[in-house]
C-alpha cells in the first residue's frame, strides 16, 4: 500500500477543485505543458476525459499516451490517481 507517491496521496486526499493539471500523479512539468496546450489546463478537464472513457484505466492510459506522449508508468499512475479520486468523491 505504500507504493503510491506523495503526489498521489495529496491529490486523493481532498476534492480537486481548481487544481492545475500538474498536480495529477504521473504528470510532471513536461507532460503538464503538453496537456495545457491541448486544452487540458485543469485537472477536472482530464477527469472529464477519464469519465467519458467510462473510467477504463487502460483506455485512459492509451489516450494519455496519444495525447501527450506519456510512458506506460506515467499513464498508469495518472489513471490510478483519478480512479481513486473518483472512488472517494464521485
Amino acid at each position, binding site marked *: *500500500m*505504500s507504493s503510491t507517491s506523495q503526489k498521489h*496521496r495529496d491529490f486523493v*486526499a481532498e476534492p480537486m477543485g481548481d487544481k492545475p493539471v500538474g498536480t495529477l500523479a504521473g504528470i510532471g512539468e513536461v507532460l503538464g505543458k503538453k496537456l495545457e496546450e491541448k486544452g487540458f489546463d485543469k485537472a477536472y478537464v482530464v477527469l472529464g*476525459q477519464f469519465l*467519458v*472513457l*467510462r*473510467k*477504463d*484505466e*487502460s*483506455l485512459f492510459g*492509451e*489516450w494519455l499516451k*496519444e*495525447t501527450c506522449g506519456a510512458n506506460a508508468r506515467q499513464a498508469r499512475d495518472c489513471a490510478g490517481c483519478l*480512479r*481513486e479520486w473518483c*472512488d*472517494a*468523491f464521485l
Partner: protein
Amino acid sequence: MAELTDAELRKELIALGYRPGPITATTRKVYAKKLACLQAEAAEPRRRVQAAPPSPGRGSARPQQASPSRQRSSFIPPAGAARDTPKQQADGKSRGLEYYLSQFLCLASFVLFMIFLGILMVKMIGSGWLDRREENFNLLPVDCDKRTDDFCQAKQKDVLMNVLHELYNYLSVQAGNFECGNPENLKSKCIWVSEAKDHVVNVTGSSPQKFDAALHWILNSNKDLGIQLKAKDLSGAVRSVGDVFCLESAHPQMGLGCRFRRAVVTAIMNLFLFFWSLITLWGILLFLRYRWRKMEEEEQAMYEMVKKIIAVVHDHYKEWERNLERYPYVGIFHVRDSLIPPQSRKKMKRVWERAVDFLASNESRIQTESHRVAGEDMLVWRWTQPSYVSDSEH
C-alpha cells in the same frame, strides 16, 4: 477502420463484448484501436477470452476495496477478510495433516499389535502337534528276539518305534526343562547316551540292544525325527552307534507359561525396530500438536494487537481533525509504547513485529510513511480514510 461511422464503431465494439463510452472527437482514435485489438484476439484460438473483461473487470474490482469506505458498515478491511480465507485454508491443511498423521499412527499401532499377537500364537502352538502320537504298544506277547519271521519282524519294528517314541519324549521333556528354568540343573540340552539308555530301558522294559537298534535306525533314517545325535566333539558327523555321545531333542516340550514367556520375548525382539520407530513418530506427533497450538495462540495475540493499533491510529486521526493534535500521523514507536507497558515490551516484541508487518501489507486504511516528528525521522502511521465518511456514521 477510419471509414466506420461512430454508430458502426459502437456496434462493432458491442458485438465483441465491450461496452464503449461516448465516441467523441477525442475518444474515437482510442476506441478504434481497441476494436482492432479485440478483433485480433477474437481471431486467435480462444486462449485469451478473458482479455476484454479484465480492464473493466479490474477497474470494478479495485473500487470494492475503497468502497467500504463509502458504505456505512464494515469496519473489517476486505483485504483482511480475503487474507483470512487463505490463512484458514493453511490452518485447515495443517489440521488435515495432523488428523491424517494421527490416524496413520493409530492404524500402525493396531497393525503392530496384531502382528505381535500373531507371532505369539505361532510360537506357542509351534511344534506341539508333533507330540501327539499316542501309541501304546504292548510288549511282545512272545519272545521274538531270536526269531526272524515276518510277524516277528513287524512286531520288532513296533517295539523299535515304541522305544523311539519314548526316547523322543524323554529328550524333549528334558530339553523343555532345560529351556524353562532348568529345575534339574542340567548342564545342556544334550543328554548323555548312557542316561538316555537307562531311562528308556527302565520305562519300556526292553533290552539295551533294542536301544542300540533304535539308535541305529535313527542313524540310517533320512527323516527328521526330532532327535539329534551328537558326537563327542559336538560338531563332527556321527557315523556309527559307537560315535554317539549325547542326544538332543529338536522339539523341546515346554509348559504353557514357559512358551508364552518365550513367545513374548521373541515377538518383542522381532518387532523391536518397528516398535521404536512408532514411539518416535508418536513423539513427533505430540510435539507437532504442541507447536501448532502455540502458533495459533500467537496468531490470536497478533490479531488482538492489530485491532488495538487500528483503534489507536483512528482515534489519533479523529483528534487531529478536532485540532487537538498537531499531525495527522502518529509514530509507530509511540503507539507501541502506549499500548504495551514497559515490563512486557520484551515479551511482546515478536507479536508487535508481526502486527506491524500485517498492517503494512494488509491494512488499506493505514499508511506506513516516514516523517520528521519532533525533529526526529521516524516511521509513522497515518489514517487515510476520508474524514467525512466517518463523520457521517455518527
